């Protein structure tokens, strides 16, 4: 009897084994775009018979979960998504498969991608390791209803001698922040938590003042007039024009302040734009718009770029199936569907699509933002640089270091990291 039972279960197992389709396993972060991809996956399984299993985790867990899988000869992830932070490290460690041959064999067109994104999460030194997945460039979100208010316009004109309108330059924006800090409203809300929220947000301030992280030879260029001004402005925003506690806000807390209608503006990731129009999360539906962070002149932008890319790790158990998935998910059709659902595209043909522009009036602004945005330094030690920035900026905001001392400390550590990586000679 027992033998029969055993035999029966072995046969049953064998059947399920052979009937089980191939599965593509992907580790992803719990963000809106992941959700949009998840909703589209049944279409892929129907087309190809390949199952897709998305393991969705918090950002903080991703790196720690990925590395052991990437180091081992045979990992459990068929494909991965790579934050631009990690690109330098993953390339240096040789964890990603080059995709050029697959791209060529299938005539997959990569020229449709926004060039800045291809630089950030596509190619490294001429080899394509990733396909840009979604962008999280930062933009200025602001309250359109406050700008349009006649009383505000008259008061602003009287106070500053200029019209109250969508700010064309950084200085104009700073005046608006000061102006709107009144009657319990805050001119701005900041995400001052270390390390990445503050480091990413402050980068916009740096670029908006015309600053840069390093010169062509990777010599740090932070401790100068633009850098010091950026730190001083950031501190003033938190101390004078922002709500109490924004020095410790992560992006969700800062977003909530803005979404509850308590602030005029918030510089944040563009994927938050759709959330402002979601009545379950926002009390300011239809009153918030996004634009590129204004720069020192109307022609220059101050936005920080950011993006994730799809990649196939060397340790992938089934790279061919993974590539089939990548090709499908990054096709114009699927990329467009994802964008229609509210995703952040990376393809120019999706940005130019008439259906999308009809649905989302802010799409031209998003495209403009990507085209004028600045990249964060990408090298092996990007995460560590973010860590250093977070610590020193947080010290400066807390008033425990002068802006110039904090920037000098960042420069010293950044130069050491760049030297260790062979970027700085």
């Amino acid at each position: 009897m027992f033998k029969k039972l055993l035999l029966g279960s072995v046969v049953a197992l064998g059947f399920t084994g052979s009937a089980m389709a191939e599965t593509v396993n992907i580790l992803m972060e719990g963000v809106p775009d992941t959700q949009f991809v998840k909703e589209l996956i049944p279409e892929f399984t129907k087309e190809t018979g390949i199952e897709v299993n998305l393991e969705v985790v918090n950002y903080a867990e991703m790196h720690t979960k990925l590395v052991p899988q990437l180091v081992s000869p045979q990992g459990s992830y068929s494909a991965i998504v790579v934050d631009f932070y990690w690109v330098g490290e993953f390339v240096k460690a040789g964890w990603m498969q080059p995709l050029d041959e697959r791209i060529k064999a299938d005539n997959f067109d990569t020229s449709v991608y926004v060039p800045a994104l291809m630089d950030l999460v596509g190619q490294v030194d001429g080899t394509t390791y990733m396909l840009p997945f979604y962008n999280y460039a930062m933009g200025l979100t602001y309250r359109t209803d406050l700008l349009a208010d006649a009383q505000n316009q008259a008061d602003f004109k009287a106070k500053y001698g200029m019209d109250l309108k969508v700010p064309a330059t950084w200085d104009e924006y700073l005046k608006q922040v000061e102006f709107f800090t009144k009657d319990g409203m805050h001119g701005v809300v900041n995400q001052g938590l270390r390390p990445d929220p503050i480091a990413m947000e402050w980068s916009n301030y740096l670029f908006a003042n015309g600053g840069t992280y390093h010169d062509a030879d990777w010599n740090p260029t932070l401790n100068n007039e633009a850098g010091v001004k950026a730190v001083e402005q950031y501190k003033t925003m938190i101390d004078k024009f922002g709500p109490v506690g924004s020095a410790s806000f992560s992006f969700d807390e800062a977003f909530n302040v803005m979404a509850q209608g308590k602030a005029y503006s918030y510089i944040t990731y563009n994927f938050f734009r759709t959330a402002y129009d979601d009545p379950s999360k926002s009390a300011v539906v239809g009153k918030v718009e996004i634009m590129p962070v204004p720069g020192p002149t109307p022609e220059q932008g101050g936005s920080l770029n950011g993006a994730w890319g799809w990649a196939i790790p060397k340790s992938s158990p089934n790279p061919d199936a993974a590539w089939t998935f990548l090709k499908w998910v990054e096709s114009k059709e699927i990329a467009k569907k994802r964008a229609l659902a509210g995703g952040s595209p990376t393809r120019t043909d999706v940005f130019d699509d008439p259906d999308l522009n009809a649905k989302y009036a802010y799409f031209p602004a998003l495209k403009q933002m990507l085209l004028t945005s600045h990249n964060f330094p990408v090298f092996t030690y990007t995460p560590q640089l973010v860590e250093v920035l977070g610590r020193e900026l947080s010290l400066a905001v807390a008033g425990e270091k002068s802006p110039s001392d904090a920037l000098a400390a960042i420069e010293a550590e950044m130069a050491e990291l760049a030297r260790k990586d062979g970027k700085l000679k």
Partner: protein
Amino acid sequence: MSGIKASAADRRDARFGYVLAAPSLTVLFLIILFPVLSALYTSLHEYTLIAPNFDIFTGFDNFRLALADAEFRHSAWLTIRFVIGVVLLEFVIGFGIALMLNKVERFKPIYYAILLCPLLMNPVIVGLIWRMFLHPNLGIVNYLLSTVGLGPVNWLGDTKIAIWTVIMVDIWHQVSFMIVLLLAGLASLPKEPYEAARVDGANAFQCFIHITLPMMRTVIIVTLLIRLIFAVKTYDLIYIMTRGGPGVATDLVSYFIYRTAFVGLNIGEASAMSIILLTAILGLTAYLYRYMRSIR
């Protein structure tokens, strides 16, 4: 003659004992000693996640680098103060509540259940809940304060307040651990000495000082020791609530080591830091253990 026989039997017993203990000793070796030795070995090499190999032997360089790092020293010093703060406060509060509960006759299981709730929660969830409670503008704590006319407190954004906020949350989360252990100790105390003392006319305070404290000493030391070791490892709360900020106000050593390993990718130096931490905790444990034996 009988002595020799007994020792032969003893030896047999001892051998049998070793055989019985062998499986658990093997498991202990594999899951505790092996990782520790592996960390020690790693700490003597330049082992990074970029080049995960033991090609370069660096001797004690990683230890020198760690000890020379002002950030590491700051984290270590902050951790010492944090640990003393939470352990002492939790002990005082926990012992007080345990003494009160020890007198309670009715509904004891209900009090237990309520007290154990925070302890059963995952620290990550505790951190997230408190982050929401303590939101300066939208959180309930500042709202309640505002109803009695107190201004908004910048719980996590002020360098002077943040560490106390973390200590407060840690106490909320862990104090029931102290209560449960101390209460178990109190419940097992014999009744006779108290009765005798009462006959002699001792008051409650005298009973506490001269009977409860001396008889509870071992339990107290074990409780403090376990809590102390856990407190040194505090990581989740910091990670969720402050990320070590604002500035470096809450940058505890476990979180610092984590960053060295997984952000800085420097497993060698992080291992060295862990070994330093382990040595410190071991030393403290050994000292308390000897102290405990000496007073028996």
